[in-house]
């Protein structure tokens, strides 16, 4: 329930392929809105100051920090979260993350996978160091990162060279 005099604005956007037309509180972040109002809890909130990468979502095809964008700014945008990302790269990465145990608690995983998918879309054959650099804005406390790099490299290995 919204506090009585919380200022809101009207937005219309597409979230995971579904058109949404609604009021959003002006000060609600995109990730908070997706999680608490739309009910898409796959993007996580880890720091709310743009450091950890747990909140990654795609806006108009680009990966952004969901904690550093306001929901009201998504007006007119196409938003995708991990739940709705059905592109072949994301699906392959999800599978590879599972099989390489590239996650333990899993809290960083959705953000990590979206970032890795963007990397592979732009650079299908990165080196391990390039994978590490591309993921250097995504914090994982559990894995030590190595299995994550392994998973991304495994997907890269089955991609056609660009």
């Amino acid at each position, binding site marked *: 329930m919204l506090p009585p005099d919380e200022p809101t604005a009207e937005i219309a956007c597409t979230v995971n392929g579904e058109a949404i037309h609604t009021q959003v509180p*002006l*000060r609600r*972040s995109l990730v908070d809105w997706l999680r608490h109002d739309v009910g898409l809890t796959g993007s996580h909130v880890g720091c709310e100051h*743009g450091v950890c990468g747990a909140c990654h979502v795609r806006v108009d095809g680009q990966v952004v*920090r969901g904690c550093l964008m306001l929901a009201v700014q998504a007006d007119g945008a196409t938003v995708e979260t991990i739940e709705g990302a059905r592109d072949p790269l994301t699906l392959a990465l999800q599978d590879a993350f599972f099989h390489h145990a590239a996650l333990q608690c899993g809290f960083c995983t959705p953000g990590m996978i979206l970032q890795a998918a963007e*990397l592979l879309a732009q650079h299908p054959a990165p080196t391990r160091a390039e994978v590490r650099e591309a993921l250097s*804005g995504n914090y994982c406390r559990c894995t030590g990162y190595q299995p994550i790099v392994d998973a991304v490299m495994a997907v890269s290995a089955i991609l056609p060279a660009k």
Partner: protein
Amino acid sequence: MKPARFDYARPATLAEALALLAKPDTAVLAGGQSLMPMMNLRVARPARLVDINRLPLGEIALGNGVLRIGALARHAAVLASPLVAQAAPLLPQALAQVAHAAIRNRGTLGGSLSLADPAAELPACMLALDATLVAASAARGERRIAASAFFHGLYSTALEPDELLLRAELPAAAPGWRYAFLELARRHGDFAMAGLALALGPGAARLALCGVEAGQRRQPAAEAALAAGDLPAAIAALGTAEAMDSPDLPAAQRVHLAQVLLRRAFQQIGAAHAAA
């Protein structure tokens, strides 16, 4: 960690935006990659946000020997632009070290320059590239500000509260000029402990530091020594920098790192020159 309340406006035209900026206590929301963290932490609590993301200010164009980069050009777009690579090869060197991919997808040139964070890479680049920054206000129209006159100190610029930065204009790289951007950070994408933007031409040099002094500026004494080919003198000249001091990063350490970077940048450029 939720922002304090604010009003929000998303103008469709520049005129509308400038009119909104004339109101007090108003902040411009561009990429939001610095402003939103500060608002979430309630370190910044503007009464009004003017979201300029719908304004047509993202263009990157090259003409008449001048590279024009709109204030809303995202770091990722500038980094990937062939025009930028051709006309301002320093910028991709620097931008590759700016934060992380997702931040670069949203963060803008104008936002970085207007904030004037002492550790940010792009102000140093503008100084080393002798950029002209073009701003506009409703009351006074457009004005052009040399980069060397734009940055005033810690988070402080020549922009008036009612002014909006529109674009940067950079003279395209001239023959014989070479460029290096180097920085030292604890981790990939962190703000630099020290960074350095260097443009070295025939008998001339432009040099600016980031992460060292509170206000970014050209380093004339070091530039003069570099122009004369005297690297040791240039390194010594940086010793007089008025560096920021913090428990984790004392002033002397920042200066030392800047001097290390200058030697490396000079060697890198020299090696490239020798190879060419």
